[in-house]
């Protein structure tokens, strides 16, 4: 087991006082540190629970990305943003892997998560998982299958890790695992070449009352621990990030050693003022409009050759009709420039209950106004699938869906592209990165939550058939009754021929009027 903990000082101007680091023989203490933290653990397969190994052995690569829907700061180099919720990207070795992976996802993150898998090859084998297009080609870092679910809390995962790694009375272990609940994102990576499992958790700040880090880290049994405290410096090159600070190999070093380094980075921050908000226009009806608002002062490109993009992961009840989005006028009316990529559940007619795929992933290019004087509202026209009827006294025939915020970023063409992956802070398999060439640099807008405080996600009320108003039996027998009455009524008029013919009355009546 290898552990590496990195702190990034929030305010580079205040710097860092090395005396706040206390190095002991097998531990290190951090005190009064204001900044972000990344905790990375590398495990050999032997150190992983058997039920996980069984799934991993069927994977060429597996990447799990979970991001909170709480609002939080991005501090370089931890600025890349997947849409809030649970993402799974994976390339299978064996076709059978999906069913096991679905059970694992449900075990780790919650049994209620929609993950349909089928062993029947005649039906669609990749039911829950979708296949995004791969623009990067064979140099891609991206896995071939995609899965996403909105997921606000990781308590299921935290409970699982606690049970599998901490012995019953090891409260220190349990407390540390418990800290994961406050993480802003959690990554898990495995590939069949390194045979190692990489876990990463990121906190934008401490969750203690003074918002400062006060903690002691111990060397794990049969492992190593490295702790770094880094400060963002102004880089020499536009595409680079540069850091100064202190690194400590706990157990080897008796004091922190100063360091200064820089590297080409794929993911870059934008100024704090570059924020965006996303919300659904009210009333949303069955064709909700997802509106993304960008303030005027954030609309200047960070570099040459940059294009503004938004990437959305839409759960299966919500979908996009790609056909009108090929019309420049229609696109322009929504302040969109192009629909670059759409994959997943794009059937325009299927109700949600026959849609096995998790949903769809969409990449839009947004117009960049020639003069950034006015704020920009981008609207994304979506449609709702019909959801299964409900029987509820309280819901007023509505079901509430949690729809995550999109990611909004500039994608710029870079020159140093091929060296990104050498950086220890590089992060790939985010959903959108595979849709761009390998020489692309991303600059991220900071999502800011809507006023009503539901975090980086929006609730969307979907009207559904409410069986509490009219019961299923009433609908069924009522319909059948009316159809039978209608049929009999029409048949009766057809028979009326024989009935009235004898009397001759009807004929006379009409015959008289015909003149």
């Amino acid at each position, binding site marked *: 087991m290898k552990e590496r903990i990195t702190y990034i000082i929030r305010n580079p101007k205040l710097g860092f006082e090395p005396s706040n680091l206390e190095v002991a023989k097998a531990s290190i203490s951090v005190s009064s540190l204001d900044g972000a933290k990344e905790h990375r653990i590398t495990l050999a397969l032997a150190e992983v629970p058997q039920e996980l190994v069984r799934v991993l052995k069927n994977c060429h690569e597996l990447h799990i990305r979970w991001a909170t829907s709480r609002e939080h700061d991005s501090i370089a180099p931890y600025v890349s943003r997947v849409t809030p919720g649970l993402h799974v990207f994976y390339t299978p070795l064996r076709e059978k892997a999906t069913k096991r992976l679905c059970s694992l996802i449900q075990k780790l993150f919650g049994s209620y998560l929609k993950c349909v898998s089928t062993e029947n090859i005649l039906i669609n084998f990749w039911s829950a998982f979708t296949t995004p297009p791969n623009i990067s080609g064979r140099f891609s870092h991206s896995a071939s299958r995609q899965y996403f679910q909105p997921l606000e809390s990781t308590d299921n995962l935290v409970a699982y890790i606690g049970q599998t790694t901490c012995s019953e009375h090891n409260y220190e272990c349990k407390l540390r695992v418990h800290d994961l609940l406050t993480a802003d994102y959690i990554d898990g990576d495995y590939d069949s070449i390194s045979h190692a499992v990489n876990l990463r958790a990121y906190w934008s700040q401490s969750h203690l009352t003074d918002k400062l880090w006060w903690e002691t880290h111990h060397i794990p049994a049969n492992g190593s621990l490295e702790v770094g405290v880094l400060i963002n410096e102004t880089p020499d090159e536009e595409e680079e990030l540069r850091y100064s600070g202190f690194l400590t190999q706990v157990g080897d070093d008796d004091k922190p050693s100063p360091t200064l380094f820089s590297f080409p980075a794929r993911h870059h921050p934008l100024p704090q003022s570059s924020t965006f908000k996303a919300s659904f226009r009210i*009333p*949303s*009806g*069955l*064709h909700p409009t997802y509106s993304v608002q960008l303030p005027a002062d954030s609309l200047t490109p960070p570099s040459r050759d940059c294009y503004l993009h938004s990437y959305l992961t839409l759960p299966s009840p919500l979908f996009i009709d790609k*056909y*009108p989005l090929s019309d420049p*006028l*229609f696109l322009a009316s*929504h302040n969109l420039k192009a629909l670059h990529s759409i994959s997943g559940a*794009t*059937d*325009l*007619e299927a*109700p949600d*209950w026959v849609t096995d795929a998790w949903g769809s992933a969409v990449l839009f290019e947004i117009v960049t106004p020639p003069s950034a004087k006015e704020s920009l509202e981008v609207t994304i026209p979506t449609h709702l699938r*019909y959801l*299964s*009827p*409900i*029987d509820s006294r309280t819901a*007023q*025939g*509505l079901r509430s869906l949690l729809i995550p915020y999109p990611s909004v970023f500039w994608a710029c063409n870079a020159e140093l592209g091929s060296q990104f992956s050498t950086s220890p802070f590089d992060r790939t398999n985010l959903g959108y990165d595979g849709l761009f060439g390998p020489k692309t640099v991303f600059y991220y807008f900071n999502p800011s939550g809507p006023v009503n405080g539901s975090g980086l996600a929006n609730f969307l*009320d*979907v*009207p*559904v*058939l*409410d*069986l509490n*108003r*009219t019961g*299923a*039996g009433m*609908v*069924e027998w*009522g*319909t*059948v009754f*009316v*159809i*039978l*009455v*209608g*049929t009999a*009524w*029409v*048949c*009766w*008029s*057809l028979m*009326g*021929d024989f009935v009235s013919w004898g009397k001759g009355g*009807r*004929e006379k009546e*009409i*015959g008289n*009027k*015909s003149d």
Partner: protein
Amino acid sequence: MPDLLSSPVFVYSGAVLLRVVLLFYGLFQDNFSAFKYTDIDYYVFTDAARFMSHGKSPYARDTYRYTPLLAWLLLPTTWGRSWFSFGKVLFAVADIVAGYLIVLILKSSYRMPGGRALKFACIWLLNPMVATISTRGSSEGLLGVMAVALLWAVTQKQIALAGVILGVAVHFKIYPFIYAISILWWLDDEQLSRESGSKYPKNGQSGNRILNLLNFLNPARIILAATSFVSFMTLNGLMYSIYGWPFLEQSYLYHVTRIDHRHNFSPYNTLLHLNSSPAARSTLKLESLAFLPQLLLSAVAIPLILAKKDLPSTMLAQTFAFVTFNKVCTSQYFLWYLIFLPFYLPFSSLLRRPTLGITALVLWVLGQGLWLQQGYQLEFLGRSTFVPGLWLAGLLFFMINCWILRIIINDINFLQPSSRHFALKKSD
């Protein structure tokens, strides 16, 4: 005004002008607004035609569920930007031809004076709904011209031609098969012998069952059955050989397996929505029997009881019953029966008793209005109006349609034959 409506110059130029204006207005709106005049289906057709022009299958386009013939007809739309509207022009021309055929049939088979015939043809020719649907690029107008051409061919005793048209129409949109039954039934010896010097010999009457059957199988009926079957199967065979399984799947099997859960005018809609979902508790699956009342009325009872009395009005009643009892129903389907209205209306109690006629029209519009109001609340305001609102509105509209269907049936049943002049072409 009434005089204008009986002037061929006014009616035809008016019908053409109406469509030309709408076509150009559509071009204008499409070019300057994000909200397109052009129907979504038209993009489906033209996309499919584009796939076809690249040597691919039209079924490469999602939601293309029509015969490849339609995409083939629209191939010129792929010749360039200015050709994009070719299909709309084609549909609009089909409208005018259909209107012209209505006039021909009214004049020749009903012995109606030209002016009066034109007036009734205006129901189709100058109908803004018909003109809009065609110029927006919906192919229903093609069905209209096929249905009326079928009727025209029958009245002109072009039985083989009628068979071919019938085969093509059924290949195009399935539902015209109901006309096969009424036409076959109608084509009895009495109709055939009305014309002096008929080319079909009259069979003698006999009490013998086999002879009765032989009597039924007169040459005209055999020719119609054979030509329609051969043309229908030839087209299917041809399309299957070129486009294979997707052709069968998209143009025919889809209509068997489709769920039709999204709200529409059909009385079955809420039941289908509910029972196709996981919330379904019913084990009876009564909705799978929905075809029974529909086919009983439109393909059996109405043609057998009424066809010999008045063929065109019977075709109206059949279509009306088919659409009313269908598992899915949208406003484009109303065009299917509208084409037959000019044959029925002149002799109907709807026209004879204006209060009845106006009541029927108002109720028909009101039934839709009520449904649309509930649909608007659901679609745009997000209120859950599935039950009871939309459900009851659909059932009410169904009952209104049943009531109107009864009026049509009663009119066909009870009007004196002498008041209807419909007959085969007579040699004057």
